[in-house]
Each structure stands twice: as C-alpha cells, then as structure tokens.
C-alpha cells in the first residue's frame, strides 16, 4: 500500500474523535518512525488545518521526529532522581558503550525514581543500570 493510502487509513481510524491530531500523529510516528513533510502536508488537507498548524504541533512535542532514527534508540533518564543516583557519570561514559550500535536520547523521568539510573528501549524499561549492564543491553539490541 502506498504511503498516502496508509495515511488516509490512519486518519479514518480516528474519525469521530474530538481533537484527533495527537492520536493520529502517534500512529504515524509509530508506523513510519517520523512525521515527515509529506505526512504533515497530507494531514493538513485531511483535517482541514493549515500546514503551519500541523507543523506547529509536530515540532512542539519531543516525541515526534522529522526523520526516522537510523539505529535503535536508548532513552536514558537524566532527571533529578536519577542524577542523585549517578546517571550523570553514566551519561558521560555511555557513548563509548553505545559504540555506534544505538542512538542515545535523554528523557526526563520514567517514574522509576527509586531504582535509577534507568533507561527505556522501545517500551521496555531497565533499572539499576551501570556501565556493564548498559553495555550488555546495547549488545543485545
């Protein structure tokens, strides 16, 4: 199926919802790994919004990317509770551990504040991390 038809399907799946833009964008991000220009243009037409309005929403939220990630993404929490448990030391060493096998993103709080440092890969969460554990996680990707 071509992309335009799939975009139409996603929009149709949310028909009847009030204020459907965010759920639609989530579905697009999940399916294509990003919300690109083509998707924005198409959405604007389908939802009777201006392209600027759609772009404004997409660019406001950290979750929506303009291009798909080339590698698996590991989100490392660097909020205060994890800082108190040493995530900054991890953050300094993580790029060596990543070794070009994954992209490292920063996230502020996964709600696991008692067992940090924490990270999320996809929807899987991992706690009590140190460099050996992180390296193992990354190798398993």
């Amino acid at each position: 199926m071509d992309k335009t038809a799939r975009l139409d399907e996603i929009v149709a799946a949310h028909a009847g919802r009030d204020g459907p833009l965010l759920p639609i964008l989530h579905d697009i991000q999940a399916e294509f790994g990003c919300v690109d220009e083509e998707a924005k243009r198409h959405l604007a037409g389908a939802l009777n919004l201006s392209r600027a309005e759609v772009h404004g929403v997409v660019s406001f939220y950290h979750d929506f990317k303009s291009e798909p990630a080339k590698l698996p993404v590991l989100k490392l929490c660097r909020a205060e509770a994890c800082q108190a448990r040493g995530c900054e030391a991890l953050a300094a060493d993580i790029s060596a551990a990543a070794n070009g096998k994954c992209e490292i993103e920063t996230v502020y709080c996964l709600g696991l504040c008692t067992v940090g440092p924490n990270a999320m890969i996809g929807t899987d969460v991992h706690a009590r991390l140190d460099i050996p554990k992180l390296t193992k996680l990354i190798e398993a990707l």
Partner: protein
Amino acid sequence: MSRRIAISDDALALACGADALAEAIAKAAPDAEIIRVSSWGMHWLEPLIEVDGIGYGPATVDDVAAILDGSSSLNIGKVADHSFIVRQQRLTFARAGITQPLDLEDYQATDGWLGLAKARELGADAIIETVTGSGLRGRGGAGFPAGIKWKTVAGAQASQKYIVCNADEGDSGTFADRMLMEGDPYCLIEGMAIAGLAVGADKGYIYARSEYPHAIAKLNAAIRASAHIVAPFAIEVRVGAGAYVCGEETSLLESLEGKRGEVRAKPPLPAREGLFGKPTAVNNVLTLAAVPYILAHGAKAYADYGMGRSRGTLPIQLAGNLKYGGLFETAFGITLGELVNEIGGGTQSGKPVKAVQVGGPLGAYHPASDFHLPFDYEAFTAADGLIGHGGIVVFDESADMLSQAHFAMEFCAAESCGKCTPCRLGSVRGMEVLDRIKAGGRAAADPVESLPQMHNAPKQGRSVDEELSLISDLCETMKFGSLCALGGFTPYPVMSAIKHWPEDFGASADMVKDKS
C-alpha cells in the same frame, strides 16, 4: 494445597527483572499458582517474591531454588507486617501489593465500586458536599479544594461537560500516579465516574504521558473491562508526546484538543471554559483515586487524618539516593526528617544527606535544618517550598548545588512552552548567569552592556556576588511574571540552592554570612 506465589507486574518490578523471575519460578515450581499483582511500593526489595505471604527480595533468578525451599537469606518475613507497610495509612493505595490490577473480582472483593454505588444513591449535591467536607485538596501540586472546583463545574450551564484526569506525571521523583494507574486502574476509573456524577459530565479523558506505556496499556484494558459498570460515563485515554509542560492543566487541555501544548491565560478557569470551551473538572490521578474511599467511608473518615488545612493522606514518594525508597502513604503532618532518616533509612551511598528536593523539578532544595518541617501545604509554603505532587528526592554530599540550580534553568528552557517571556527567555538568561558564576564572575565588561544606550548596565565586569544578585532579580521576575508554574516555580530550586549553599556558588564570605 498449591502454593500461591505473587510477583508484581508493575513497570518498576519489570525494569528490575520480574518477568524473568516469574518465568524461572513457573519452571521450578509447576504446581504453584503464580499471580501477578500490583507493587507494595517497597522498591528496594523489587523484584519481590511473595510465597504464601512471606516475602523475598530483591530476588534474582539465581535465588529461585532457595526461595522455593524456604532457605533463602532474602526472607523479609510476612510482607504485610513489614515495618515500612505497617507504619503507613493506606487509603488510596489500600490494594497495593494485594490485588491483581485488572481482576474485577479482586477489585470487587476489596470494597471496589462501593463509592460509586454510594454516589449514585446520594446524587450530585451530596457528593460534592461529601468531597468538600473531606477536605480533599488537589494532589497535583496546587492544593486547590476538589469539592469547590467540582461545585463550579456543576454550577456551569452547558450542553457538554468533561472530567479530565491529569496523568502527565512528569516530575522527577514522583511515581504514585504511575503506580496507581498500573496497580489499581479501576480505582481511578471509579473516581472519575463519581466526579462525572457530581458535575454532570458523561465523558472523561485520562491524559497520560507517553513515557508510561505500561500504565497506558493497563488503563485501556481496565476501561474496556469496566465500561458496563461505569456507563453511561465513558472514558478515553489520550497519550502525551513528551512535553513536561502539558502537566499544567491549561496546556494539557490544549494538547487534548490536538494543539501545541501552550499554556492558556486564566481566567477563564477550566471549570467554566475548559476542554473544547466546555466546563471541565481537571483533577490529578491521586485526587480522583482518593474519592472512592471518601464516598464509601464518609467525609469524616478521611478528614480525621491530617493536620491544619491539609486533610487526609498523601502518597509520598521517597526517591533518589535513599536506602529504602518507595511509596509511603501517610496522613499529612509527618516531618521531612522522619521520612528521610527513619523511613527512608538515609542515603544509599552511606554519605550524609546534603539536600532534599521536595515537589519535583520545580520544588525547593531543603537542607537538613528543614527536617522539622511537617508535610502540610501551608508549612512548606511558609518555608519557601512546596509539597507539589509529594515527591522527595534525596541527594548526598557529593551533589553540587550550582549544577542543580543550573539544571533547573536548563530544564525550564528545554520544557518551556514559549508563550510567556519570563519563562522562555528568563530560563536561558538564568543558565547564562549561572555559567558565569561557575566561571567566577566576569572580569571584562560585556560588549553589549558597554553600549551607550545600556544606561543601567555596569561598564565593568561583574563579581560573583553581583551575578548572584542579578539572578535573584531574574528569579523574582520569573516568579511573578510567568503565566504558569513552570516559569513561576523554577526560581524555587534555584533560589533555595543559593540560599542554603552559597559556598557552592563561590559567593564571598560576607554574602555567605548574610545568607545564614
């Protein structure tokens, strides 16, 4: 009789390896009944395995054999009798660790739906009277009386009204919303249905953050399973997209409408013109989850807990560098020192406590000399702090408060919605000033400040003390000039860090003396 083995399926337990454990146990003890329950909230013991009520934790796959034959040294005795549990007053989290989150029979058997039944009997006015009488205040941080908010919504005339549950729990050091949504989703659904009856709304939204995929899955399953019970009230989960500011209620409403999460100016209050311009009650997860108990047991039963104008219980989240971190629900009035030292057991690193941040990224840093403060909205306000969502993050002496202050500004800059100037620009200027303080002030004059039209700017460099007074001015502007709490409360962590630890900022001896 076969053994009953309980393991939590809370995201935190999963992150600590609960699934692998459950698998290993199923293999090692095929005759045992393995159930996946909510978490007790004793996070240092996760993954916790409960064999016929006796707890073992934190367990690894290698411990399974010893746990099953009862010889494991991880034995903590009867979980329900653990001092961490016995010391609490669990009203909202009464089912934590006990029930299977999505099991309707478990919910029913533990007083589930009693509050809703009572609410249906009472009718709107009496529900609001009960909630007002209980003294319940908004648990999201602002502490506004829930009954009064509901009364405003109930009194508004409109074709459609909404209940919106704020589950955008972005504060670091807080996880009570997540635990409730994952561990007892029917309790939240029941609370929302009661709120709907009270204000005359038949539609509810739960706005949950995308960082909580497990909670979202549980909520969706629970909403489907209980739709026939709460009907005609209908609930929909909407997922945020990584914007911290959407935890602010008007920004949340914009986001729900499918817009940029920019803060709205108030008035109009959401209670009058909220979601899609309709009267809307926006309440935090914990506020709504406290309601079933209040309806089932009466206003007085709830109001009997607490102190002053802070009535009932608060699920406090003990986090950061603590030996015994977790969820501790207790009546208002417990002191900060009791929580950190007695219940939390001091720091995990064994080093002395330096600072305790209460109330998330926008809460103040408190030194040990504030440990006498009781958990009470007014007491914390009087001490230039806030309770916020009840999260406590403990730092040991290795923390550098200048870095923490810098992080507060950095966080505000990253998460600002951009609508108002004090927050959008103030946070960036704040980072710059703190960078200069880190560098020991500025020796030479700034080229822009040297321009002839910059009448009030100094024509020479600035000392650290001068930079500190500059950031105090900036914080004052942000505090009173910002539209919402993001810009308005960022000064709390910054100013408290400067006030209590001026030496970390390289302030002169005179200034250190003045501040103390």
